[in-house]
């Protein structure tokens, strides 16, 4: 057994194909890391003056933290409203298309919902302040009158309807197609075997969905929601156009509050020097928020890993 015939037959050229391909794939992955790293460095360098500046020179005059935290809260509120609306509705729509709608119409319906993703954010912004906001004014008034004792519905309601609540709804509409289309694809991939197993045990359609479809799709749903959250956190133009911005206030039906992305978009054009650094620092903070949110999501997915659908 001097020479291994298998070894000599193992064509190096063929293996090279594999190496090249996996190398390219790896390179692509690394490129993403490098890009992200570069973005982070870029943000850090540009934001640096903010952190070394005299607190009195920062907008508001009380330092960067005092400047940023209200808009961080605002960002979180906007994203939370958006996800609270879009997640259940998005999953519902995805289920409707994958498991409820008649087959023939399901495809076109999915297409129709995907269309929502096609609409540019400027248009959402314009629609938001021209159509949605005025339409919501009576509802806000009703809320202020009947549920005004709850701080988030404290009146007097905005007369233009350009409130955090409206911004949240616009964001919800914007992230809906993201959540829907990803979840739908995954729901459609649920193994028929498992769906049939549930049905054969005498499950109703909804029980089949909870026993076979949702558990299988859970990690995918979480990813979809994260993707939606990314969009909701980072959306600039729509919020900038829809929201009557202002200081942090608990009421969602009055003008007030601000999100980081909108703060950047609104002030960037006229900003220079320290103000520019401040805005970029705000971008950095947004970046960190995404980081934290994703860590939490990862944690959730990892906990269910052992029971993931892949087998």
């Amino acid at each position: 057994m001097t020479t291994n015939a298998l070894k000599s037959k193992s064509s190096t050229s063929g293996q090279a194909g594999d190496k090249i391909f996996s190398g390219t794939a790896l390179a692509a992955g690394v490129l993403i890391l490098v890009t992200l790293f570069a973005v982070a460095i870029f943000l850090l360098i540009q934001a640096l003056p903010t952190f070394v500046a005299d607190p009195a020179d920062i907008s508001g005059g009380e330092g960067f933290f005092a400047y940023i935290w209200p808009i961080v809260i605002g960002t979180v509120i906007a994203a939370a409203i958006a996800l609270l609306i879009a997640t259940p509705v998005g999953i519902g729509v995805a289920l409707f298309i994958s498991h409820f709608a008649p087959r023939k119409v399901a495809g076109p319906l999915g297409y129709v919902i995907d269309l929502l993703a096609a609409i540019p954010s400027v248009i959402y912004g314009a629609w938001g302040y021209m159509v949605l906001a005025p339409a919501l004014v009576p509802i806000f008034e009703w809320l202020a009158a009947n549920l005004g004792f709850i701080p988030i519905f404290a009146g007097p309601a905005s007369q233009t309807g350009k409130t955090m609540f409206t911004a949240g709804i616009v964001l919800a509409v914007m992230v809906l197609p993201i959540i829907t289309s990803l979840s739908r694809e995954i729901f459609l991939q649920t193994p028929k075997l498992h769906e049939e197993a549930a049905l054969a045990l005498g499950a109703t359609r909804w029980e089949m969905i909870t026993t076979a479809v949702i558990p299988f799709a859970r990690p995918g749903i979480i990813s979809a929601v994260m993707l939606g959250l990314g969009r909701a956190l980072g959306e600039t133009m729509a919020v900038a156009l829809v929201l009557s911005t202002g200081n942090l206030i608990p009421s969602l039906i009055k003008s007030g509050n601000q999100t980081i992305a909108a703060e950047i978009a609104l002030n960037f054009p006229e900003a220079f020097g320290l103000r520019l650094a401040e805005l970029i620092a705000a971008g950095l903070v947004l970046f960190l928020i995404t980081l934290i949110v994703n860590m939490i999501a990862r944690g959730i997915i990892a906990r269910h890993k052992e029971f993931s659908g892949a087998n």
Partner: protein
Amino acid sequence: SDNPTAAAGSESASSSAASGVTGTLTGIGASSQNSAMEAWITGFKAENADANVQYSPDGSGAGREAFLAGGAQFAGSDAYLKPEEAEKAKEVCGPEGAFNIPAYVSPIAIAFNLEGVEEINMDAATIAKVFKKEITKWNDEAIASQNPDVELPDTAITVVHRNDESGTTENFVEYLKAAAGDVWNYDVSGDWPSDIQSENAKGTSGVVSTTTSTDGAITYADFSAVGKLSTVNVKVGEEYTKISAEAAAKALETATPVKDAAENDLALDLERDTTEAGTYPIVLVSYHIFCSSYKDQATVDLVKAFGNYVISDAGQKTAQDSAGNAPISAAISEKAAKSIDGITVAK
């Protein structure tokens, strides 16, 4: 095709080549003068077929930032260069630095939407109190006393301000501070004072459309853009001045050159608290900022040609036709031409 206004296009092509300037001139800056700038570019290109000018209305700050970084050959700005910026300009422009030319003048209207009311008189203190939300009803005594002939409804006043940082805001609050300093005790800035929580919108078109759709709303916006909204007559001296291009031009005449400015620099400090009748003091002056020297002759020629076109009668006329602003006076135009002709090739 690149020729939407077919008739005009073919004509201009022939008249061109004579001047002989070529190349692309890049400007970045104020959005206020965008409409005028489009008119200038079109007019300039009609005379100089081989030249191109591109202008991005990113905002005054962005424009000055880009200009100072060497990313644009000129900037449009609602504020002249600050001393430290003027200092920095020497890095890109050479030892002579940069200079400001007033190119676009426009009055800022205080515009409102109140059913059945066309015109209202207010003095500076009243305006300041309204925008500070100290006066919250249209039939408040302070307003009523100045408008005995107008029937004012019991409507709430909705103040609408800009939510983006803006030259319009800066000029408006500069006026409030100067003319009603005891009421308006905020720093002058392009950002609306954050203590005043009110409705707001992005851009001039944003505040105008929000105001137009909300009864009882009041805002401040470039006069040319107020559309169907009514405007406030502002008390200057003993009289109420109705907003107009002429009244705005008059404010420019009473303005004083910024002290310590270089000879070729035409930066102006407006006298907001003027008492001279017929003057409308809430005026926005938008500048073109040029280097005193550029690296090659072609650029110098191009800049001179464009700069001169803008301040020429023809240039100011086209802008006015397009943007509805006020023209600069002949005196300023003359001084500006001298400054522009002083641009040289860097040594």
